């Protein structure tokens, strides 16, 4: 049994974990990060790559806006081209009720300082530069964008290592030792890492870690499936979303000319599962939505499908901040499918909490406490 000392142990090598490791190491803290598989190997490296502010829950919007500020200079920070491009996000609707919903959000988001604008059908075609069918209109946010999930997450991990964090991959946590309600050490198969501070950034595996310190966490694993097309001639540059009631899909053009197609995960089969196979009904749904909305893509070949497991909370808001019941425990989890965009700000906030005990964004609405007070109501569906 090897014994290590660390000021902070981060559990989970998704983007919230590696970003926290990076900022903490840069601030001079002795950091150990433990990852059960590999950095970016789960949802942080498997998602659609959206970096979006529009359409967020009002409680989440300040976090998304602050995260985009970090994304804007992230390449300099981590030293590679993460393929982050601030090329905008177009959220489309195919029904009158969908348009009314977009208009309500538009009003609210304008008031929050987001430069969103409403588009009619022609406006959607003009902005995207492609033929669009069935769409009545949309909402456009020019400061949104997208990035390469694998590049960005791995780059954050490498930057954390360069800054002095010790990152252990293929090292699942087997236990947490606590005495008198205070954390003393994090255990793995052959290591004991002595620490007073643990950052729980284990996404859908968080409840497993929570139970080690006696917590029941309302975090559910949800499958999210994706497709990628072959390379196509010049297509839209924006991240495009379509929703209609419980249905929806999204599209991200990669810099190589492939198009990533994702789905919101509304089917029951997608809920409460760690399965990562892709399934025909969901693939079919995404392919049909693509062909129906973008006629130019109707004949394009799909070359791969895959899925990732997201960590959904009952209100689809993340859990960021300290746990009052277990001294030294800080949450950075439950991102409900929004962790890729929010990863950078999550890392910064964790660093602030560790180094100053305070945070530059109020954490009340994303606190662990909201579950203890019973105030949380379950919301419809993850978008």
């Amino acid at each position: 049994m090897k014994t290590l000392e660390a000021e902070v142990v981060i559990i989970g090598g998704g983007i919230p974990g590696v970003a926290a490791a990076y900022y903490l190491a840069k601030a001079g803290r002795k950091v150990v990060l433990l990852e059960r598989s590999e950095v970016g190997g789960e949802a942080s490296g498997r998602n659609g790559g959206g970096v979006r502010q529009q359409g967020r829950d009002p409680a989440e919007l300040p976090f998304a806006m602050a995260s985009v500020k970090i994304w804007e200079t992230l390449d300099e920070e981590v030293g590679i081209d993460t393929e982050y491009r601030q090329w905008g996000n177009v959220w489309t609707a195919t029904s009158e009720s969908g348009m009314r919903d977009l208009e309500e959000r538009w009003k609210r988001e304008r008031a929050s300082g987001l430069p969103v604008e409403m588009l009619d059908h022609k406006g959607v075609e003009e902005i995207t530069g492609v033929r669009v069918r069935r769409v009545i209109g949309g909402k456009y946010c020019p400061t949104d964008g997208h990035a390469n999930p694998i590049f960005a997450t791995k780059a954050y991990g490498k930057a954390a290592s360069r800054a002095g964090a010790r990152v252990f991959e293929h090292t699942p946590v087997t236990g947490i030792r606590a005495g008198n309600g205070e954390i003393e050490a994090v255990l793995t198969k052959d290591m004991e890492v002595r620490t007073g501070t643990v950052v729980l950034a284990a996404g859908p595996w968080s409840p497993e870690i929570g139970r080690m310190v006696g917590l029941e966490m309302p975090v559910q694993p949800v499958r999210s499936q994706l497709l990628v097309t072959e390379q196509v001639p010049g297509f839209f540059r924006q991240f495009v979303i379509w929703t209609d009631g419980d249905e929806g899909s999204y599209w991200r053009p990669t810099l190589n000319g492939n198009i990533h197609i994702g789905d919101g995960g509304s089917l029951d089969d997608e809920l409460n599962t760690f399965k990562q196979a892709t399934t025909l009904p969901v693939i079919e749904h995404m392919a049909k939505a693509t062909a129906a909305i973008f006629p130019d893509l109707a004949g394009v070949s799909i070359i791969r499908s895959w899925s990732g497991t997201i960590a959904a909370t009952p209100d689809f808001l993340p859990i960021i901040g300290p746990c009052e019941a277990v001294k030294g425990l800080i949450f950075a989890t439950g991102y409900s499918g929004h962790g890729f965009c929010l990863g950078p700000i999550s890392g910064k906030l964790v660093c602030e909490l560790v180094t100053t005990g305070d945070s530059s964004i109020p954490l009340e609405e994303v606190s662990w406490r909201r579950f203890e007070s019973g105030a949380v109501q379950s919301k419809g569906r993850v978008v």
Partner: protein
Amino acid sequence: MDRRITNHPILGALPGRETVSIYVDGREVEARAGEPIAAALLAAGIDVFRHTEKYNQPRGLFCAIGRCTDCVMIVNGQPNVRTCVTPVEDGMRVETQTGRGRWGESR
């Protein structure tokens, strides 16, 4: 130019079949009904199906079973069509593709 094997030592004589016309970069090419586009092109002496995006190198038939995507061309305005597994149709327009190709006007 016709490079078809009309008398194969094992398979025997090429049976007669209905022909259709396809248009390769505007030029009419006669094809046997139902054969893959790639077969018609090879028979007509056409070996270069596309040019690569980065180095503009010529590519043609490689795996011939629909896996490698080396033989893709623009067919009836649709880029990236695998000609080795796509049967000819009368009046089909086939174009040599450069890079990722381009969307045709009428699809």
